[in-house]
């Protein structure tokens, strides 16, 4: 019995190991190593600095504070130009202060911990990713006074964006990141103009500037989001090439009284959210595309529902998805 059992158990491992070593070439492995080091760095290095952000031909600068230790992960970003929008994060809790609309949005990540971080890139998933993206280790470049290794992640079609990353050679922090289209042209750039890597982050650097007094607060109880759902009234056919449904939730949108269904599609790097909300008399419906920088949102009305598709993907991807949504209530899957 046992002699029969072991080979069956080991055979897939053997096949997997053979495939893995033959597909992940040495050069790819070097690139993967840089990316993995970068992921680890974000979990145990403290830094603060000024991030310059270029989007839609506009330059903005932000103060960024990042703390990661045994007590958790903390981040704070505040825009130094114009409206002082601010995001403060403590582990899975994120608070966004929007002085322009006098709103504060409080939300909790459904994905606890760093589920995505190492698992997405490691091993077999890297081979999956290579179906949609080409990974190249490029030359070194100096960013914010530090040596950085450039990594190019080029999309193989126009359904997703690519990335060029500058990873600190010593500490593996992401120092600069470009979002690229299929032609390799830059659509959005974020770069540290200066960065200080420190042992200790003083508590006051993580305190939000805004008190949120007089603002409208939107908060969802963490337990109002049920985990994955298996049954749905909706189908999406076909899914954009390379994307799979990574999760489905039923929850209430911030500031909405209507329960909604929320699907997340992912190709391993890019994520797309699809919200299905039943239309009510007092709710406004909208249809069409609305770009928010590199993030595109597309609204469509289908079977009495407002469907909103949003993601950091090209406009054609969200639009194509909008037309692939099928109402399939009562149809057994």
């Amino acid at each position, binding site marked *: 019995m046992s002699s029969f059992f072991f080979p069956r158990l080991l055979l897939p491992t053997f096949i997997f190991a053979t495939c893995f070593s033959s597909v992940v070439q040495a050069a790819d492995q070097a690139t993967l190593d840089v990316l993995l080091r*970068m*992921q680890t760095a*974000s979990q145990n290095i403290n830094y603060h600095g000024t*991030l310059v952000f*270029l*989007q*839609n*031909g*506009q*330059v903005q*600068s*932000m103060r960024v504070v*990042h703390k990661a230790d045994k007590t958790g992960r903390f*981040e704070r*970003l505040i*825009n*130094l*130009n*114009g409206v002082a*929008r601010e995001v403060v994060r403590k582990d899975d809790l*994120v608070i966004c202060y*929007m002085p*322009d*609309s006098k709103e504060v*949005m409080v*939300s909790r990540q*459904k*994905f606890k911990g760093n589920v*995505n*971080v190492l698992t997405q890139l490691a091993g077999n998933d890297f081979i999956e990713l290579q179906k949609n993206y080409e990974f190249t280790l490029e030359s070194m470049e100096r960013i914010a006074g530090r040596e950085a290794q450039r990594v190019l992640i080029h999309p193989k079609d126009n359904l997703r964006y690519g990335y060029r990353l500058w990873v600190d050679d010593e500490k593996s922090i992401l120092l600069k*990141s470009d979002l690229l289209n299929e*032609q390799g042209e830059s*659509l959005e750039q974020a*770069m540290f103009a200066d960065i200080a890597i420190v042992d200790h982050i003083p508590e006051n650097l993580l305190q939000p500037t805004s008190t949120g007094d007089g603002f409208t607060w*939107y908060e969802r109880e963490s337990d109002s989001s049920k985990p994955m759902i298996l049954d749905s009234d909706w189908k999406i056919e076909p899914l954009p090439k390379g994307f799979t449904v*990574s999760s489905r939730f039923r929850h209430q*949108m911030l500031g909405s009284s209507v329960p909604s269904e929320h699907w*997340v599609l992912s190709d391993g790097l*890019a*994520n797309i*959210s699809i919200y299905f909300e039943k239309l009510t008399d007092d709710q*406004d*419906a*909208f*249809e*069409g*595309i*609305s*770009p*928010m*920088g590199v*993030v*595109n*949102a597309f609204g469509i*009305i289908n079977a009495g529902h407002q469907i909103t598709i*949003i*993601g*950091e993907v090209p*406009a*054609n991807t969200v639009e194509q998805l909008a037309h692939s949504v099928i109402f399939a209530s009562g149809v057994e899957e």
Partner: protein
Amino acid sequence: MINPSDERISALVDGELDEREHQVSVDKLLAHSENRKAWGRYHLIGDTLKRSLPKGMDHDFSSRVMAALDNEPTVLAPPAPAKSSWGQRVAGLAVAASVTAVAILGVQFMYQQDGQTLTPQMAQTSMGLSPTAQSQAARVNLQQSGVQQSRVQQSLRANIQTVTQSSVTMAHSSKPVNQFHSRLNKYLVDHNQQAPRAAVQGMIPYARIVAYPNSHRLLIQAQK
């Protein structure tokens, strides 16, 4: 820490000082040498991001221009007409200190998106237009911007608006457009939270939330 004039210089670099403010403040703002230096630095940051730096950098271009202007004989001429367009003023500045880089930055970006065939994104704000009509509007827009290429400074403002305009049709809506944007913001926040964070981009998704107001503001201006 950043001071108020830094913020306004940044707005100037981004072409975001509003029209009334612009006329008075450019002169005032750049009257101080510290501010002129900051203005130079901000342009440098922008150029660096665009990888459009010349090989030899002149870090104190503005003071050399000012010195050159001081040496110029004073010309007594009637003041310019009060009502000059924003574009003309930008063009004027451009001659003084090569602000054209900013103008080109805005326009280049639009062409990049054009190349990426994001036609719906380029469409005119269309209330009730069919998708076909929208893409026709987009084509017309692109042709227009081709014409405008030769007059980069004058069309800067219009172009940036074109890039950020959305073609959303509000069905049975009487509520102001900013409520719609507030709602989109909530989707953006929720999406960033619930979708597994794009592993390779670190905190950039949050930077997008923090950065959004400026294009948002232009978008609302465009729809007025």
